[in-house]
């Protein structure tokens, strides 16, 4: 599935004293079947960028092309056409557990299928399938989503998005507020989903997560693209200039190099590879 940004700019409250230029002349193409991380500090414009993909926002100038559908100021989109824009894109917002509203888990998961495909012959089967993918068994089907724990709610929300079988999954800060174990569980789940052929766009502050899971990384600062490349390539450099955190492992690598240790940072991505490199260099 093709997603392309063509000279896209976006301003909030354009032509008013409150105008904020969130994105400036963005050109970007997402590769199919990749995990692409969009990183930048709070307010850099990264959330705005993702909301242009499924036309929650319309560019102030330029255009976003998604699967041959054009999102720009000229084309008026409503009703069925709007659904065509959104049905292939799953969007999980930060605090996605807040979006549950039906009185049972299974109904909430079917909600998206019913609104995108009102004539679908078997929404129940799809819902059950995606619930089992997120690791919730049939004992959950009839329970009220409001009685679940935070982690279970999050899983129901994820299932509710997977159920309508999007081809792209946009994740806004999926690991925020989670402990290390929770982080690993949820990212492993997303990787499992990725294995089924869903492309992933990951918005995150957490450089350790980006380093571990993303194939491609787009750095945004002040509404402009600063870098595009492999996380390993970018993160081993000084990323604090873009207001990003250096991943723990590269903090060690940078310190070692500063103390004159000869190591090849290209071979290092985690503790195991660091130790190996240290041993090789005596």
């Amino acid at each position: 599935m093709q997603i392309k940004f063509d000279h896209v700019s976006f301003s909030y409250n354009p032509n008013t004293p409150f105008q904020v230029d969130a994105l400036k002349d963005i050109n970007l193409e997402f590769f199919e079947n990749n995990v692409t991380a969009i990183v930048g500090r709070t307010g850099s414009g990264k959330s705005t960028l993702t909301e242009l993909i499924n036309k929650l926002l319309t560019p102030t100038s330029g255009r976003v092309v998604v699967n041959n559908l054009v999102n720009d100021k000229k084309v008026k989109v409503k009703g069925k056409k709007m659904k065509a824009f959104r049905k292939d894109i799953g969007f999980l917002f930060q605090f996605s557990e807040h979006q549950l509203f039906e009185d049972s888990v299974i109904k909430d998961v079917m909600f998206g299928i019913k609104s995108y495909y009102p004539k679908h012959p078997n929404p129940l089967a799809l819902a059950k399938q995606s619930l089992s993918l997120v690791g919730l068994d049939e004992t959950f089907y009839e329970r009220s989503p409001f009685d679940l724990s935070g982690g279970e709610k999050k899983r129901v929300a994820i299932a509710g998005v997977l159920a309508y079988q999007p081809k792209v999954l946009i994740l806004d800060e999926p690991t925020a507020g989670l402990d290390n174990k929770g982080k690993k569980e949820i990212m492993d789940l997303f990787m499992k989903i990725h294995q089924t052929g869903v492309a992933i766009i990951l918005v995150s502050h957490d450089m350790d997560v980006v380093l571990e899971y993303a194939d491609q990384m787009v750095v945004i600062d002040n509404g402009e693209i600063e870098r595009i490349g492999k996380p390993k390539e970018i993160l081993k450099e000084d990323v604090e200039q873009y207001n990003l955190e250096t991943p723990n492992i590269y903090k060690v690598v940078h310190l070692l190099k500063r103390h004159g240790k000869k190591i090849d940072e290209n071979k290092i991505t985690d503790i195991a590879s660091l130790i190996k490199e240290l041993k090789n260099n005596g």
Partner: protein
Amino acid sequence: MDKNILGKYVPYNTAIHRLDPRMKILGMIMLIVSIFLSFGSWTLVFTLSGINASLIFILMLISKVRLRDLIYQLRSIWILVIILMIINIFLPPINSEHIIAEWGNFKLYAESFLQSAKIILRLLEMFGVAMILTATTTPQQLTYGFSFFIKPLKKIKFPVEEVAMTISIALRFIPTLLEETDRIYKAQASRGIDFKHGSIKDKFKGIISLIIPLFVSSFAMSDDLAFALEARGYNPKAKRTQYRQLRWKMCDTIVLILVILYMAAFITLFAMKFDFMKQIFPLSW
């Protein structure tokens, strides 16, 4: 989102912004009384309405409330305007005598239109006054102002301070709730709800999908807030001091006197039924 709607504070620092909120509340009430007093002849009614309108326009200029924003309010009342017209045409005001057209039994009176115009003009003036008040006074100041006026109710055990605290916390959390609404709106739109162009059934479902999560979030929020209030030593029954003090200044007194004189002039005209326009133009309606 950022239209200057009725009730939104606009942070300038004009002379009117600096007035005491109590003065502004009193002033608003007196101006509205002046607006809604009724008088004899149509000429007089419109002359006085014109005087009110000019005063309000001047106040708007001073307080930097834009006329455009006031007219924007008309959007929300145009249905009312049409209903008014229809009622006034089919049930003309008593004493209507100027017939414009006649179809058999049905007579179209000029007074029908005059009456509609009068009411709309008054509504607009009232909106204007209210807008000046809310655009120049923070909700917090308004709360302090109102709680000053309801203070005597304490004698009948009415919880004045608690009510004031509740209002100011509610005001504080409106932006937070709007943010949450926006987030849930986007999440449900991404799940295929078409809030703008869907069928009635879709829209209904859409509203439910917004309201329920909002309720759940606000309950969670109020739980947190209760702990936060307690942790910082808030006790509704205990005595507490107040950081923001209202300061009545000389200029507040002067402006108050001017407004009282203005209203008094209107009341005098009203009470004496003195129609100076009729004196000057004896033939006027």
